[in-house]
């Protein structure tokens, strides 16, 4: 948003400011059983095509693994879905009715897309409990959060999630003092509190021990069904355990889809072996 357009809005008599307008996006519609559509998306940074005619469809309730070498555009793809980066061309729809390219980050988050970053980002100065509290689904209008109280039901949910992410002993610990793995878990917990319909998880097991990895895989698979989950990961063992025998795996290369199918098929795909697995 440029200063100029904002200025024009401020000077426009009939303008309804976004913070005054009711913030209900169109209702999510997944009649066709597809939750996310990315069609013909391209974006370039200074002439370098980070995403090149990308097409991707995620079904409602699906757990999808996305693999691809460094620089393949995985994080950029998430940036586009969540409104951080505007694509140069293409379409991105959430269900049949919600056009993601018309929305900014908070609107997209409120529509039901949650994101876990590659580098764990938690609010370091706040406690574990407070981090989860802020993530909790609910009205985000300024006056509402000013008067917000945690209800009994919400407290149960918070306790449940704190338990689930293994931080039961540390709810009052500042997030900044957690270990790398614990921060990863806290961020996953924050996603759970947010209760998004679609979870985008960028390299969740970086810095985790094998045991923690197994637990993460277990957690993510348990989420599928109620939520759709898109996991971007480098670690092949982890992807193998997530994808199992019959989930779809997408291979991204140079900003577009190189191959898509079951883990087994993908692993034996010649092109894939060349660019990634055979490295």
């Amino acid at each position, binding site marked *: 948003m440029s200063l100029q357009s904002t200025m024009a809005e401020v000077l426009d008599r009939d303008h309804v400011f976004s913070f005054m307008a009711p913030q209900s996006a169109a209702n999510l519609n997944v009649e066709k059983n597809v939750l996310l559509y990315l069609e013909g998306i391209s974006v370039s940074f200074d002439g370098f095509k980070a995403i090149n005619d990308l097409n991707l469809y995620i079904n409602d309730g699906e757990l999808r693994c996305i693999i691809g070498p460094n620089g393949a555009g995985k994080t950029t793809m998430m940036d586009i879905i969540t409104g*951080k980066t505007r694509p140069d061309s293409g379409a991105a729809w959430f269900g049949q009715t919600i056009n993601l390219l018309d929305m900014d*980050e*908070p609107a997209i988050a409120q529509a039901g897309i949650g994101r876990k970053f590659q580098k764990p*980002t938690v*609010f*370091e100065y706040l406690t574990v409990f407070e981090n989860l509290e802020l993530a909790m689904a609910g009205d985000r209008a300024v006056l509402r*959060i000013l008067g917000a109280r945690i209800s009994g039901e919400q407290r149960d949910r918070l306790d449940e999630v704190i338990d689930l992410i293994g931080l039961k002993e540390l709810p009052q610990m*500042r997030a900044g003092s957690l270990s790398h793995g614990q921060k990863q878990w806290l961020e996953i917990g924050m996603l759970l509190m947010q209760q998004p319909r679609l979870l985008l998880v960028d390299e969740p097991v970086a810095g985790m021990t094998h045991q923690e990895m197994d637990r993460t895989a277990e957690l993510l698979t348990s989420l599928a069904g109620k939520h759709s989950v898109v996991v971007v990961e480098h670690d092949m063992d982890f992807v193998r355990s997530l994808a199992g025998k019959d989930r779809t795996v997408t291979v991204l290369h140079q900003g577009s889809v190189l191959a898509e199918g079951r883990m087994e098929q993908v692993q034996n795909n010649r092109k894939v072996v060349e660019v990634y697995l055979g490295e």
Partner: protein
Amino acid sequence: MFLWRIMKDDRGGQILLALLALSIVLVPILNSLPPDSALYLPTYTVTLIGKYLTLALLAVAVDLVWGYLGILTLGHGAFFALGGYAMGMYLMRQIGDRGVYGNPELPDFMVFLNWQELPWFWQGFDQFWFAAIMVMLAPGVLAFVFGALAFRSRVSGVYLSIITQALTFALMLAFYRNEMGFGGNNGLTDFKDLLGFSLQSDSTRIGLFIASALALAFAYLLCRYLMQSRLGRVCVAVRDAESRARFMGYRVENVKLWIFTISAMIAGVAGALYVPQVGIINPNEFSPLNSIEVVVWVAVGGRATLYGAVVGALVINYAKSYFTAELPDIWLFALGGLFVLVTLLLPRGITGLLRPKEAV
């Protein structure tokens, strides 16, 4: 109880409020002692402390946006000065025909400029209630428009600091101009009375002191209420990881706009209480240096604690009074040196020495 809920985790704030309450009781008593008594508090000192309290109020306003929300404002002096001018305009109208030119309607400087009638924006300032509203409204509206432009365009960091400086600088230049109708570089002065009470009398000065102490206490509670709520935690979240808060669904620009506007209104009240105690308001109050100084007070006192801002403002302004009287040449060096020392050695400010170490 409400007050207990918002203050129970704030030791420093409890002490501050207790001291303010104590001063409201003690200052009038000590002032009424016979002048040769050892405990006698001269009216001059009462007014000096009252002035410091208004500066502390300004520091609290800055801590709200800088300490909690991470907006390094270098222009809060502008909101302070606007509040001061609104009060000054009321005080000017109170002079009535007691000015040098004896014009019942026009302030002296307008007669001097050969103006025939009161400009439209001076209308209403003969009423205290109107002036009192404008004290908060003028800075509030300016902050709202400025914030709407800046925050929605996602201007932040150093760039935002620079445009806040530009804002106060531009206002200073504007207020220097006689045509603006605010008394040019002389500003507004020669005030006579406030609500019918003579500004020279001891009781009015005590009253202004008490009003300043009450305003500080009330604003402190307001800020505390805001910051111990979930909104306060969202502010800290925005300060430390703004984009994360956005991806969580928070409209960061709205949070900033609300807090920034409230803070500007508090600064306006501070300015309005400052002006009758110092007896003058002129465009120098818009000086960019003033706004920078406030940030130094907050840094020295300790950010994001509210009471730290009060301590910083009081300590530095006391030091300033001392230095500018005794060693005027080295004051700026002392201030700069103090800022560097505190930033390097005491990142949590002087009140940070008393607080338990937080695990961060």
